[in-house]
């Protein structure tokens, strides 16, 4: 008799325990449900009328991520407590997510192609330039500073036509420098990226040969060199390799004090990459297409740094959920105005006024049902 009692008790106990666990789970689920429904009501915030939408989601460019993180950290404090969840999954993935209606907005460093725009099942898509990026040419050559390069020379290096640092073409524009007879290790981005898109559009603009053989895009078929992942990968590879050259986005270069080359612009001047020279490049474009899908490489003007490009937010013109559409329009409006104050401290180029006014027109064009999404002025 005695050996049976403990076994019976053993049988009973775990069952009770499971039951308890189940009950606890149920209770938690109930609590969570209550919590959700109670937070669904209206909360107060600045501004006239707050949309009831409290959450917007976006995805795309990794280049934008530091700036967006700061913007979306500040935004709920000033505007109706609207939280923005941004996933830095890459520009291409951001466009895909927008086309699949997974996110409310996408962010991309390369404008959508006509092909991509045609895939939209919800009508036209608007491009809204949100910030400006520039690409610096980084190099590692012991004893050489203030290296000067021109666009055609850069293209020839990346095509594998110029292979040593003491090539006569490089020597000709770097009079005072003692260039060593050393092989050039060409470094490019291995992952698809907006930086590559801006860089290859520049090479295509200055070298017909590059344009016909390689072309421009977030990923190209590189004729030569080695690929490294991300800005940090390229910068690290250049730093590790004597004789290397690579292209890295400006904000990364400025934040990490990486040596860069001076580049000859369309006006024939050698210009260092900086927030000012990138802005000068963006401002030099007056003939702006209505859909704002355009590249600003190789701008005119004495002070313009030529490898510069926009980063865009992309949204549907016709918002299916008007409450959400209003919240989105309000967010975008803030991003191109007040939000721009966070650009400079984070080494991003603030939008020039000419572009801000174009952005305003785009945001006002967003439709929520029969009326405009943006109600302000």
């Amino acid at each position, binding site marked *: 008799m005695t050996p049976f009692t403990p076994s019976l008790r053993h049988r009973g106990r775990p069952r009770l325990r499971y039951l308890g666990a189940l009950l606890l789970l149920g209770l938690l689920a109930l609590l969570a449900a209550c919590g959700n429904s109670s937070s669904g009501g209206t909360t107060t915030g600045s501004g006239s009328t707050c949309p009831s939408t409290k959450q917007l989601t976006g995805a795309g460019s990794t280049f934008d991520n530091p700036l967006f993180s700061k913007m979306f950290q500040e935004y709920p404090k000033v505007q109706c407590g609207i939280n923005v969840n941004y996933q830095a999954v890459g520009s291409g993935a951001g466009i895909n997510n927008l086309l699949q209606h997974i996110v409310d907005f996408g962010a991309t460093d390369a404008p959508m192609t006509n092909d991509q725009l045609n895939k939209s099942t919800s009508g036209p898509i608007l491009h809204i330039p949100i910030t400006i990026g520039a690409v610096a040419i980084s190099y590692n050559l012991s004893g050489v500073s203030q290296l000067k390069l021109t666009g055609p020379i850069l293209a020839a290096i990346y095509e594998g036509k110029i292979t040593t640092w003491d090539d006569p073409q490089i020597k000709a524009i770097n009079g005072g420098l003692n260039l060593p007879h050393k092989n050039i290790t060409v470094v490019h981005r291995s*992952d*698809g990226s907006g930086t590559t898109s801006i860089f290859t559009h520049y090479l295509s603009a200055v070298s017909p040969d590059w344009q016909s053989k390689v*072309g421009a895009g977030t*990923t190209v*078929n*590189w004729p030569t*060199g*080695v690929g490294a992942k991300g800005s940090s990968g390229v910068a690290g590879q250049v730093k*590790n390799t*004597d004789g290397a050259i690579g292209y890295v986005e400006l904000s990364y270069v400025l934040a990490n004090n990486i040596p860069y080359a001076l580049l000859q612009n369309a006006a024939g001047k050698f210009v260092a990459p900086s927030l000012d020279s990138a802005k000068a490049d963006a401002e030099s474009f007056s003939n702006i297409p209505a859909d704002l899908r355009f590249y600003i490489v190789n701008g005119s003007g004495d002070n313009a740094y030529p490898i510069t490009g926009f980063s865009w937010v992309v949204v549907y013109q016709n918002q299916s959920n008007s409450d959400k559409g209003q919240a989105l329009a309000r967010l975008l409006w803030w991003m191109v105005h007040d939000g721009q104050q966070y650009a400079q401290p984070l080494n991003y180029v603030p939008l020039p006024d000419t572009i801000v006014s174009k952005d305003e027109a785009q945001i006002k064009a967003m439709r929520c049902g029969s009326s405009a999404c943006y109600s302000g002025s």
Partner: protein
Amino acid sequence: MSQERVSLSKARQQWIGWQRILRVQRPGDLFFRGITLLFVLIVLGLVAGTAWILISNSLPTIRRFGFSFLTNKAFDPVHDVYGVLPAIFGTLMTSAFALIFAVPLGLGAAIFLVDFCPRSLRLVLAFLIDLLAAIPSVIYGLWGFLVLAPWLHNAGEPWLQQHLGFLPLFAGQPEGVGYLGAGIVLTMMILPLIISVSREVMLVTPIAQREALLALGATRWEVIRHAVLPFARVGILGGVILALGRALGETMAVTMIIGNQANEPSLSLFTPGYTLASVIANQFGEATPGLFLSAIIEAGLILFIITLITNILARWLIASLQRQAQGSRGGRP
């Protein structure tokens, strides 16, 4: 004679198995059997689902490029032309390199741990080696990128070229990153796996067999050669297959050091290259729907097929080894 006995006993075992399945059972057992069967089916379903998704999503490129996807060198989204020959070559090349170095090294280390190592040291060494296997691959990648590649570029590759440059393996410009670096990192990554598995299977060699050989006056090497290795070879091969699987599919570490450049397949170990896994890792984020995305998924499909083929070959090899072992021993009781 012995072969007949083996097949007879096999048939009998099968019969008993069927009897067990057909026999009326207690509901608890039936329920348990059903549950476990369900789990197996779920796993099978996942594999089938993966294959289906890969195939259906890569149909656009399969239709467009057909076989030339495997032989084309360019992976060019700008002109919408895709091929993964360099990546297939790089995958096989780096994995083969890693196996060639890791198998003898790993076996040697395992033999030392089992037969020669002082007992006090053995536990510590075995623990450290198991720890190596647990290091995340990105750490190996970082080490490869920050330590190995600069060293190869400045010292290792120039030295090889100076002394062994007449071999096609060491031709070309030393870049630091490339097949050589990736192969070394992969070797380091799969080494602990091979050591651990080999050690475990060698440890369970019946002591009677070792003693029998020692009694015949065999040296230690002869004991290992004639008792331990024949007994353990199926298990060792299993470990090698696991390691190969890891090497073929390794993504992060390889991407950081292989150079990611779609070069013509070349024997030179200095060439920056590509692997299928790193093509996917690099390109997926920016891939746009259409041929580009389809090409990346087809790269995944090819990797899936390569893994499948190597696994089938390995199973076949193991099975034939086992048959051989049983044949030579006249069937084990």
